[in-house]
């Protein structure tokens, strides 16, 4: 199972896309009566100040069903997942969760995954962790690894094959 299979538009992805679509429809139903565009989410948004993400517009666009437009836009990838919008919404709407669903949809539709996400996914797939053990440099420029520092062996999946099988199923089976 390779990264291409996990993210491609191949046949098995149909079910996954359907599931994410259902999730988006549910979010759409939940918010349609409640969001009154007060903009509290955007006023506190960490990514708004820097990258012009406007969570209240994301909610408005979803309300109008403009899902494809957002899935194709880079702006959904500027969210820092700080959860401030979900915390502070007076109507208990969670723009951050809408953004997660939209990004999942973009990936399941075979869109290019931006930046380093592919490497992170590949690493979890092969060793179970986001990255392998790194050597670090001390303040006085010595290079040390985990065992030099006196730390025990790292905990990671004991049977990588079984682990990989499980992860692959999530991406291709009916979820």
């Amino acid at each position, binding site marked *: 199972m390779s990264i291409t299979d996990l*993210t491609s538009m191949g046949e098995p992805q149909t079910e996954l896309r359907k599931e994410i679509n259902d*999730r988006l429809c549910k979010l759409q139903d939940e918010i349609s009566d409640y969001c009154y565009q007060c903009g509290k989410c955007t006023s506190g948004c*960490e*990514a708004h100040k*820097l*990258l012009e993400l406007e969570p209240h517009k994301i909610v408005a666009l979803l309300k109008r069903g403009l899902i494809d437009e957002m899935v194709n836009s880079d702006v959904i*990838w*500027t969210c*820092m*997942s*700080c*959860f*401030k919008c*979900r*915390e502070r919404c007076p109507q208990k709407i*969670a723009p951050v969760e809408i953004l*997660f669903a939209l*990004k*999942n949809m973009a*990936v*399941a539709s075979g869109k290019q*995954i*931006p*930046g*380093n*996400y592919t490497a*992170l*996914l590949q690493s*979890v797939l092969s060793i*179970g*962790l*986001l*990255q*392998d*053990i*790194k050597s*670090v*440099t*001390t*303040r*006085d420029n010595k290079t*040390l690894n*985990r065992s030099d*520092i*006196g*730390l*025990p062996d*790292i*905990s*990671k*999946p*004991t049977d990588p094959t*079984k*682990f990989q*099988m*499980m*992860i692959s*199923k*999530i991406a291709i089976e009916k*979820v």
Partner: protein
Amino acid sequence: MKKYGLYPGCVMPTEQYALEKSIREVLPYLDIEIVDLKGFSCCGEPLKSVNQMMTLTLSARNLAIAEKEGLDLLVPCPMCHLALSDCKRILDTDPAMNQKINKFLEDEGLKYTGKSSIYHTVEMLHNIVGIEKIKEKVKKPLIELKVATHYGCHLFRPSEVGRPVDSENPQEIENILKAIGANPIDYPEKLECCGGLLNANLPESALTKTGQKLQKVQEQGFDVFIDVCPWCHRQYDSKQKKAGETVAAKLEMPVLYLTQLLGLSFGISEEKIGLNLNLSPVDKLKLGGK
């Protein structure tokens, strides 16, 4: 001594060794026994943007490993803590999802039942060890040390999932710091994000967020910046120089993990709490803990 399984996550055990080192020193000193378990994987939260179902399954898998050993978990990374807590909340209230996720776990002979509790280092120190016990253990009180704290977004939001500290006015780390004689002071930017999660696709913007907050902290004359999250610490300590360059500021702010500062006040040696691994100018502190 009460035993807890350590769930290390990914960032701490692969590069943020100072956090792991100081936790392994300081918690046993406060009568918390740490047990290492085999087989853990990523919590899945950093991949929530890619596939939410994967996040849920990975978290459930890790909880199932702890359940098998009959242990509660100590989770030092706020992001892992959020992922595991959210997973527990969903699987304990949604039987259909519980069944679906457990189906994935069958291959590895695991089963999630919801028996293990999840504790972050801050709630472990504040609520389980307790402020009085910390006070008793102090050998070198850090008198008048002016401290800025940084909790990390995932430790206090979203409160709907059940977070260890208050979402708008957390004071737990402050209480712990007061117990060791330090002087924590609230500042306007206290709850701001480090930007660390943007590293995957917008690393420059991540550094800008980091630099902006640290610059504000420096301007307000703090002696030291204390964090608890390996992602945030990677930004504020490991990448401080780069962050400074990104916002065109000369940043010289000592950044320590909470457990490192506790260790120093308990008289534990600098080497044992991994102080040589901090890349920010911690020598400026002159705590005399050698």
